[in-house]
Each structure stands twice: as C-alpha cells, then as structure tokens.
C-alpha cells in the first residue's frame, strides 16, 4: 500500500504541504485543520513534517490522484510510494549526495538538469531512474 513518507532533512520548512492540506476540505487556509504539520524548533535548524494521514487525499490538486501535499513539496521531502520504492528513493538520494552537493537541498528526482558526476569533466545526460 502506498503511503506518505517523509525525508526529514530535505524539508526546508516552507509549510506548503501544511497550508494546502488545511484548505482541502472547506477552502479555508487554517493550519489547525491540516493532516500534516511542520514542527519548527528554535534556531531555524530543524523543520520536521509530521504526517497524520493515510495518503488517500480528499482533494488531489492534480489529476494523477497523488496527495496534494506531496505534489506541492518543492524539495522532494515528501514521497508517496510503496514501502520498497520508498527505500529505493531514499537510497537514490544518498547516492546522489555522494556525487554532488546540490542534493543537500533538493532530491535528485526534483532536479531537472543533468549534473557533473565525480571525476567527470563534462555533464552527462540525466539517467532514467529505475523507479
């Protein structure tokens, strides 16, 4: 069964997921009604999304039926996958982080351009992921 998984250290704390989610039932943007909340700790250094939802979105923003919170997340901190695919995604991120500093701030599947692999002089085209 697909679930919403959180990659906590990719979250930039923008609250898009929380804000959109809160409005889906009655059109009022009110954080108290949200099924996902971003917990902030003083010092700005941690943003922690807490999900209280089975992923069956009451109103998906796009036609693919995926949850709105996942669709609007800019960094890839939220994913909606089967368990094994979620593990693969997580490992894909770790591998990408070994290759390029960019993936400290964005997931590789959210980055639209090719990047230079370690030791390479040139940028090679983006590989299709196995997912």
């Amino acid at each position, binding site marked *: 069964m697909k679930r919403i998984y959180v990659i906590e250290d990719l979250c*930039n704390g923008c609250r898009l997921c929380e804000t959109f989610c809160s409005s889906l039932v009655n059109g009022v943007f009110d954080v108290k009604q949200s099924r996902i909340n971003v917990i902030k700790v003083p*010092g700005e250094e941690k943003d922690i999304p807490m999900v209280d939802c089975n992923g069956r979105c009451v109103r998906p923003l796009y036609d693919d039926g995926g949850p709105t919170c996942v669709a609007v997340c800019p960094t890839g901190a939220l994913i909606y996958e089967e368990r094994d695919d979620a593990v693969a995604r997580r490992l894909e991120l770790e591998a990408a982080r070994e290759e390029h500093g960019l993936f400290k701030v*964005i997931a590789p599947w959210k980055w639209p351009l090719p990047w230079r692999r370690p030791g390479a002089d040139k940028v090679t085209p983006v590989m299709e992921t196995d997912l």
Partner: protein
Amino acid sequence: MTARDNRVQTILWADLSNGSTRLEMLPEEWTRKYLGCRGINARLLFDEVKAGTDPLGPDNVLFFGTGPMDGLPVGMGRMSIACKSPRGTVAEGSFGGFFGPELRRAGIDYLAIRGQADHPVYLYIEDGRIEVRDASHLWGLKTNETDAALRKELSDPDVQLRYIGPAAENLVHASPIFGNLNNSGGRAGCGEVMASKRLKAIAVRGSRGIRVADYDAFLEAYKVLRQRLDLATSRDMWTPVWSTYGAPVLARLFTDIGNLMTCNAREMRWDFDKATRISAENYLDNYVTKAKACWCCPWPACQKLHEIKSGKYQGFKGGNYWAAQPVTFGSLIDNDDLDWLLVISGLCNQYGLDVFHVGYTLAWAMECFENGLLTMADTDGLELRFGCQDKDGLIDLVRKIAMREGFGDLLALGCAEASKIVGRGSERFCLCVKGQELEGIAERNLYMVALGVAVSEVGPDHTRWYPPYPCNPSLISKEELAELGIDLDLRLAFQGRNPEQKGKLLRWFTISRAIVESMPSCVFLVRDTLGLDMRPWWNLFKAATGVELDYPEFVMAGERLLNLDRAFNVREGYRRADDHPPIRMATEDVPYFGYRKLDAEDFEPMLDEYYEANGWTVATSIPTRKKLEELGLGDVADEFDALGIEVE
C-alpha cells in the same frame, strides 16, 4: 474562531507615546485601488506623514503591511515596511519569512506605529489583542540573542518575531529590521525609525483561518503560477539555478565579462580563481547544511543555512548567501576567503547592520586610505587596504560601526555622509544615490540598472524593477505583448548598453513589480513570463479577494503606487536633479571592453523617456495633474497646489 476573508483589510494603530491602540477597517475600495501591502503602505504613508516631518521624531509612522495574499500559498510571507527615511525619502522595504501570515491570522493586515515610548518596549500581538511590554532586558542584545530570549520568554515555537539589533538602536545608517534570524528588510532606514520609537521587537501569534472567495478558481490559478515556476516546467533557464544556487552563481561569469564591482568599482574584473572561491558552487558544496524557504515558496532552496566546518572560524553558523555578500565582502574589498566572508556578513546580521552599507563604506574607506585621504591616525591604527590583510581588525571594525566607537562612528554615518566629512575628493569614491549605498549590480554596461538605481524613490533598490539582467525575449511574441498593452521592443530594450527603450522598459518593470509586491508576493518569482504577463497574478488576486476588476485596472494599481511614492519624494523637495548615477559611474570609463562612463549624452535621454512614459513633467519629474487624475489621485495634485508645488 471564524475564518477571515480578503476583501476588506484592517489596520491596527498603536501610539507608543501614550500606549493607546485602535483597530480599524480600511475602505473596501482600497483593496481594488491599491491592492494591499506596498500599495496600501504607499497611500498610508503619503496621507499620514506630512512634508517636513522629523524622520526620527514621534510623528513619523512606521507601517508594517501584509496584504490579501499573505497567509495564502502565494503570498510567500512577504511584508512591506514603510516610513519616512532618516535621509528624507520614502523608506520602503520588504522581507519574507513567516511574520506576515501570522499577523493576518491574528486578524491584522496593517500595523501602524507612531509616537515614541519613554523606555524600550516590545509589542505582543495575539488575535487582535495588543500589549505593549517592557523590553529593557532586550535592549542592547544582538538579533540572534533577541530571537532566543523572546522565544524562551514566550515559550511558543510558532510565535513570529521581528526585531532590530544594536546597530539600529545606535541609529547606525541604513540598519534594517530582522526576523527569522537571517531575513532582513527596510534598509532605507526602517530599523533606525523603529529604534527611534524605542521599539525593540514585535511578536505575533494568530489562530484564525483565511478563506479565499473562489476556491476552485484559486486552485486553477495556482496551478498556472506553479507551472511557470516549477523547476521541471518553467521555461526560464534561471529557475533551477536561481532557486538552488542563487545569485552568487554569477560571480565567475561576471568577472569574465567586466560586470563585477571590484576594489570599489575602480576595476570591473576580478581574478577568476578568487571568484571561484567565493562562488555559489563552492558555497553549496562546502558550507551549506540545509535548505530554508519563506512561507509557501515553490522554490526549494532560495535560502540556505551554512556552517564553517574547519579552520579558525570552525563552528560559525549562519544563513543565506545571495548577491549582497560575495560583492560587498568579496570583490568590492578584494577578499577571497569565504570563511571570513561568511563570518563578517553573519556578524552584520547579528549586530543588525546592512551589508551593503558596511561593504560599500569599507570599500570607500579603503580607497580613501590608499589615496592618503585617511591615515592610520584616523582609522585607530588599522591598515585599511584592499585585499583585507588585517582580518581581525576588520571584524572589530564591524563591531565598532554597530557600537559607534572610534573610527566606526564615522563609517556608521554611511558612505555619503562620511565622504562629506572627509571631503578632499573622497566623494568620487562614494557609490551612493540619495544617500544610500549601491547594491552590487554593475551600471556602466547595464543601462536599465543605471537608470533604475538613479530614479528609485528609496535609493538603490533593484527589487523595484527586478530582474536586473535581461530574460529571454523569445518567450513572448510581439502579438502577445501588444495584447497585454506593453509597448516595447524587447530585443532592443534588453540590449544592455543601448539607451533606447530603457525608460519604457524600466517603467513597465517598476509598475509590474509594484503589483507583485502589493498582492503581495515575491519579486524573485517574476520568472518565465510572469514579469510581462501579469494575468496569472490577476487571476489569483480576483479568486482570493472576490474583487472584480479588469486587467488594465489591475495594472494601474502598480502605476498608482509608483506615483504615490514619487509624490511623497516631490513633497519632500526631491526633483530630477536628485535622480543621477554615482560620480564614479558618470565620469570614469570601465578599463576594458570599451564600456564607457554614463555620460549625460546617453543618460539624460533615458531619464526623459522614463519621465515621459510615466506622464511626469520631464524637466522636474513631478507627476502631472492629468496623470494623477487619470489614476484617481486628484487629491495628490490638490495637495501639491496647496503646498505651492508647481504641478503641470
């Protein structure tokens, strides 16, 4: 608690002299006429702060404005702060973060602060209730210390704060207002005005929801906006780069094309290896720890947190590295040590200083020193040369600027005032317009920038006509431009060193960005065609507020704002003669590529074209009665008449 809608906006008046407060509704008509945020701030400022008001006295009013889109996922948490600058002009600036949405959720759209408290205070606002609390224990604390102390005191992780640092308390030139540790706004003097009211901080907490008028239309309009801004679908080559690396990614490119202000802009090219060391690539690879964002931004990592991982400054943490730091503490003073650069700019944040003020004033002082206009006797024994050999001495100098000690007291006046005191030709090294330091963007090969910096009502502020670098003109056809009512030949207008069309281009950029900041949203998001085709913004505004207005009316709101800002300056005595580039840009050629100085022959026709396109009197820059009446601002023309200002 009931949800609020966005059609009627509220204002909370607070008088710190007697502690009185009053919550009022603004006229519903204003949402249509001025939209909100910067637009309504401009109207309030023109109405409430009359000509000749003492900027640091009790009669100056400090406005914090949100707007109909704040608290919705397009407002990006933007807020506009406005007051009269200590330098006499409009002082308006904006910041992102999370404060604006929280203020709206507390039921307040605008906060107007007048008067002066007799001891340091902070404001605590919770759901429309406001308390003036003692802040004696906070006065003198740095911005990060203030943030930590207030969060501890209020013990609420979601309380939103705005505060000033010791620099503003000491009325240091150009001190902005800070929040979320690394965000700042209002460098035209808003921090100084806040300090003059003895107001150290504002804390806000709200619990109301915000309802849009037409939810389905709002979602559809959001999808269009998102498509133009999303990394995967935006047609703008800058979107992915800008939203992760940010502006310092241009450092190496700019040094190669003679576009990087080096050694106080007497050079425009820097050593490529030096530029590499301070580039965004090096920063992202070796310093960044985490992405950060403002409220609901569709971009992943416009802001970042960083930590210095080794060496003398190991463990120093901070946030954000945008265009300001690599220029002001990099090429401008010829420093290529990114560790030290991040420390000194981080200290500016902690003291509450403006990095442009400190960077340009240091560069000015270095050039004065190298030319013998300042000596070791003036600088408290500091060897002040480009290349920054005495790094510890410069770090201490930043503290002395904030505390106004010794030589720091001279630099705390800002470059323009300091060069008046030093005299003897030091004015030539001062890169200021209207008493305010530049912002690191080259002028002599980007004529629109030169014009925009010169005419800006608040002094140099590139966010008023963002972006300074031309986008791809082929994204929009001539037919579409005509349909949108934009009379421009983009290919000509985007030629950097051709004076033609620059006035008209700047006018369009200024009024369209004014609309974006009035909704509000972030001007960094005018990517793809969102800076030319304002219809996606218009659709969002209509859906959120339920106000029915046609497209030309919507665009006119931006023009109204520009005319109100200009009218404020006119009333304070500013005229065409005040709209000019810094002496260096107007009199010295760039030493390579044949980029010439901005001489009158090229510059004056651009000014003519700009004033004419705006419907202002070309000789004086005063808006004409005809233009003001067309915009529904007849009362402004009447006020000019009453004050004896010659309005055509």
